[in-house]
């Protein structure tokens, strides 16, 4: 009887360990997958920028500083991606967004620059990519939140400490990028704010 009890307890502990460990591994994999999703979209943005700069160069010959700052921010962002550090990528991408915002602001004051179909198309593609980046970031942060909740709550935290799982950092956004992130909620304009269930 005692042996049976010990066996049942052992099986329960082992089962619990396997369940918690697998849960942590799955959540961590989803965090990595979410990060890859962001990288895909960021790379797409990086690929669009040279075409946009080339297309705008003739029309903005007297304002080449804006275009040069975009190219410099892009090359820093590429280097940060190669480095792979989340914080560095975050900073470099924020700087790139800021440089692009400078370009958008300039074209709003000088609409003749975007008169060509080519630049309009590239700008539209860039806006779509910004939407996808913002969405990828939200999905990634959701995954990080789910993972961190597990890492910090009982009984997962015992296994997390044993196996060296540490809380992940969310991909933060600065105030200017919040404008882009809040874009898809068009229905809020119809007075549908807030959760109802």
């Amino acid at each position: 009887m005692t042996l049976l009890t010990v066996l049942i307890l052992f099986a329960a502990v082992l089962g619990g360990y396997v369940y918690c460990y697998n849960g942590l591994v799955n959540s961590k994999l989803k965090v990595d997958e979410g990060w890859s999703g962001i990288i895909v979209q960021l790379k797409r943005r990086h690929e669009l920028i040279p075409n946009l700069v080339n297309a705008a160069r003739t029309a903005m010959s007297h304002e080449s500083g804006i275009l040069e700052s975009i190219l410099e921010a892009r090359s820093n962002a590429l280097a940060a991606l190669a480095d792979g550090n989340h914080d560095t990528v975050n900073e470099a991408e924020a700087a790139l967004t800021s440089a692009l915002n400078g370009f958008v602001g300039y074209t709003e004051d000088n609409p003749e620059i975007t008169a060509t179909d080519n630049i309009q198309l590239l700008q539209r593609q860039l806006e779509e990519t910004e939407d996808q980046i913002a969405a990828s970031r939200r999905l990634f942060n959701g995954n990080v939140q789910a993972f961190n909740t597990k890492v910090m709550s009982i009984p997962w935290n015992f296994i997390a400490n044993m196996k060296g799982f540490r809380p992940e950092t969310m991909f933060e956004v600065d105030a200017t990028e919040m404008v882009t992130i809040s874009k898809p909620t068009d229905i809020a304009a119809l007075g549908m704010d807030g959760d109802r269930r």
Partner: protein
Amino acid sequence: MSKTMWDPFVGEVDFHQQSVANPREGIEIPDFFRSLAGVLVLAGFVICFVGIFYRDALWLGVPSLCIGLVGLLGIDHLNNKDGKIRWLLYQLAEANRWAFEVLPSTNLQKNEALKRLANQPRENGSARQPGEIPMDPRVRRVYDRVGDLLTGKVGRVTVLDIDAFFWGETRKSVPFWMAIGVVQADMTLAAPSLKTDAYGNTGNQAYMLQMLCAYRLDRDTGIRARLLHESVTGESRHDFQTESIDFNRKFNISIADRKGNTPEDADAQYQALLQALSPATQATLIELKRKYDVQLVIDGDTVFYAGWDKVNSSDFSIVAEHIVTVTEAFAESAVSFKHFVE
């Protein structure tokens, strides 16, 4: 030349607005009696269940159930609820300038077309049971194509019992088709969050609007994907998984009617599904799941999108005041992720 409206089943229909006569006022019964009848039905069910083990409990359970049901039906009849709902839907079509078709009563004595259908064999040739009420052919084709979005399922609040069809256009001129069913629900015993709606109304009586919207994409996805409610027991491990934990918890994703059985076919369809479920699509659908409890089917180049909303009031004038905003906002939300899927 008459204006035509897009329809997911027959391609195009002429613009038409079926007229509905102004309903009789009916007799207003205080909400308390409806709540009481609802509680009696619920209590009757529980007591009848207990009656399986203690037969004497049936003496209490069966009368409670009967009185409750008769009370609910009687109150609705005296109040002319069905007539008022039809009128409400007609007013909605008029306000939004949508084409409109209301479904006739399922009462065989009042509906000659359905009565004729009842005397014919079923679609598959088998004989009908005595007293069987046939399904309206317009509803039948909806069930045949996207029955998953209409029928009852664990995790779903109510089934969609279609009252009317609408054809319209969104603010960005996207043509859509919509089916709406309206039910009155008693929230006396419901969770506190269900007693308040998004428009600031609070009360134990609510009108629930079950909506199914369809529109056409600018490309054929090449797949028939279903994004249904995830099981209440938790995330299924057998459906398709995206990169988002939150999205996987909210939706059970599957490809129906797969084309081909080779691993290459499966991979191609999986890629097509992932292309449709871009990060922006997923982020938008997570938000819409919270707002409308949505489910959807992406059938080639057509999106079918189902969800519900409610107005917490038994006062028809208040419901009429909000129903235009509710349905218009739902149609806008249905197309809010269209360009992300494309």
